[in-house]
């Protein structure tokens, strides 16, 4: 039975009382369904349609009053603690650059960093107020856009590389876990096809990482993809059953690990790099020299104050020490106290961030927020490991704190996307985003019978 105008007017009036517009669609749908249920029940008891419509509205109560009550319940919830911790980390980064690691040879560097933080704040706020459900509406555009932009940047850059890498392309790699989250979201209910397409998705992104080439970007992409697939499998996102999805992911991970091991055994350069990460003294003039200096500086550090240097670190210093090895620099020159303070704030940031990720009710918010947290966590872990003398994978930066202006802007924009999910995620329902719900099939062939469905799929 079609919905009468009076029901639409009633729900409109209820929704007008809600200041948070995003909450309106869900409430509108629920109130309309209630009115229709009420009307149908009254008509079943013998009431005519017009009277049933009027009585349903009467029983519902005053529209303005209900709207105001619902307005009190539905308010955007900014994650203030995450804002505060982001601002604190960015402030610490600027403070260190201006007051501790200032180099008169590069006087403009702290100013550039401050500008990067300002630009990053703009990007963060822009992403925060932008509707993150756009990722769910255009997942393939986002996925292929991210993948192809790296290819395009590599092609446009030609032979211009820095430290053997396409400089700007490597920062786009930071977006890859988010792009993969968008792809995973699109693969809802696709069963094994979805799982295989997800694998193909990781493969394409990994290929793009090799183009840059960036081992750090590859590690972030692959580890995040694995973690996101586990998050999706835990919710039976592929509709294969949780256990089957987990077994699939486990088998694929095992095969990938064996292939990695085989490639390491045949690649001398990679084997030397891994060996040097565990025992840098095995190659003191080659792959291990930076780690040896770092380990000496860290080993000779005091709790507060400047520490001592060792055999290697007395005469040698690492280039870009105050950017790529900022934590080592701080541990050596300021003491372990600086490291403990920064790590405590990072731990609080990661704890609060992951706690909010787990609280996300819809899959899009969960995948997007997890993707961003994984990007930030993996960068932090690899940076800290390198700065403590375990240089297996070099990180692009210590998010928000170390030098790396482009990385700062990208990381802050990603934090903005994540904060947007925390702010409005409670109201987003996966089924309201349209394409990813399993629509009823119009044509169905079963037991020799062809069924044609003429039922319209009603979008909210």
């Amino acid at each position, binding site marked *: 039975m079609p919905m009468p105008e009076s029901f639409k007017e009633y729900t409109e009036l209820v929704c007008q009382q809600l200041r948070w517009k995003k909450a309106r669609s869900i409430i509108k749908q629920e109130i309309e369904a209630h009115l*229709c249920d009420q009307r149908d*029940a009254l008509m079943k008891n013998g009431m005519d349609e017009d009277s049933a419509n009027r009585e349903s509205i009467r029983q519902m109560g005053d529209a303005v009053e*209900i709207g105001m*009550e619902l307005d009190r319940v539905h308010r955007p919830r900014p994650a203030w603690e995450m804002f505060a911790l982001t601002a604190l980390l960015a402030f610490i980064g600027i403070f260190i650059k201006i007051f501790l690691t200032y180099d008169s040879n590069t006087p403009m560097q702290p100013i550039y960093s401050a500008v990067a933080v300002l630009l990053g704040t703009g990007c963060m706020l822009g992403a925060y107020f932008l509707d993150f459900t756009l990722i769910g509406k255009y997942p393939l555009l986002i996925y292929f856009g991210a993948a192809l932009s790296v290819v395009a940047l590599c092609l446009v850059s030609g032979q211009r590389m820095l430290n053997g890498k396409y400089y700007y392309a490597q920062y786009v790699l930071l977006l890859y876990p988010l792009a993969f989250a968008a792809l995973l979201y699109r693969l809802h209910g696709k069963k094994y096809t979805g799982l295989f397409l997800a694998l193909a998705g990781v493969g394409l992104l990994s290929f793009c990482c090799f183009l840059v080439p960036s081992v750090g970007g590859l590690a972030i992409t692959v580890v995040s993809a694995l973690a996101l697939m586990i998050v999706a499998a835990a919710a039976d996102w592929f509709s294969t059953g949780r256990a089957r999805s987990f077994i699939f992911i486990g088998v694929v991970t095992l095969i990938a690990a064996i292939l990695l091991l085989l490639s390491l055994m045949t690649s001398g350069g990679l084997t030397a790099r891994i060996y040097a990460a565990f025992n840098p003294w095995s190659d003191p003039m080659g792959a291990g020299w930076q780690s040896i200096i770092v380990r000496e500086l860290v080993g000779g550090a005091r709790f507060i104050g400047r520490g001592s240097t060792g055999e290697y670190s007395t005469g040698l210093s690492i280039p870009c020490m105050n950017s790529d090895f900022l934590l080592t620099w701080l541990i050596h020159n300021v003491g372990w106290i600086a490291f403990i303070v920064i790590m405590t704030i990072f731990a609080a940031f990661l704890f609060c961030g992951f706690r909010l990720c787990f609280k996300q*009710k819809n899959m899009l918010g969960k995948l997007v927020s997890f993707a961003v947290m994984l990007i930030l966590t993996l960068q932090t872990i690899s940076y800290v490991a390198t700065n403590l003398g375990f240089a297996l994978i070099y990180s692009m930066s210590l998010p928000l704190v170390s030098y790396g202006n482009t990385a700062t802007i990208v990381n802050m924009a990603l934090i903005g996307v994540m904060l947007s999910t925390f702010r409005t995620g409670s109201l987003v329902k996966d089924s309201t985003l349209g394409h990813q719900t399993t629509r009823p099939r119009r044509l169905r062939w079963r037991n020799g019978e062809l069924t044609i469905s003429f039922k319209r799929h009603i979008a909210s």
Partner: protein
Amino acid sequence: MAIDKSLLTGSTTMLILKLLDGQDMYGYQMIEELAMRSDHTFELKAGTLYPLLHSLEKKELLCSYEKDENTQRPRRYYQISHKGKKLLGEKQAEWTAYSGAINRVMQGGVSFANA
């Protein structure tokens, strides 16, 4: 017999949680079920129910999901959470103690006022 509405006000949360403890329900179904189980003593208004349901969901005592049941529009079902079940247990214990005390006084039990 007419019942003072204020008696229901404080217990609505408990009643809603109890209804959902048995099965997941949508809003209209809850009103009907509550009226039926209480012999039409508790006639909950939809205008009271929905703000309450949304606020309980925000407090993570309930969660909701949509279910398409071949009706013209999908219905939003509510499900009690683990936290909600815990609160229901506490509220039920509180109610049992409270109603027991009221009954004892009303049925002429021990009165400390005259002791």
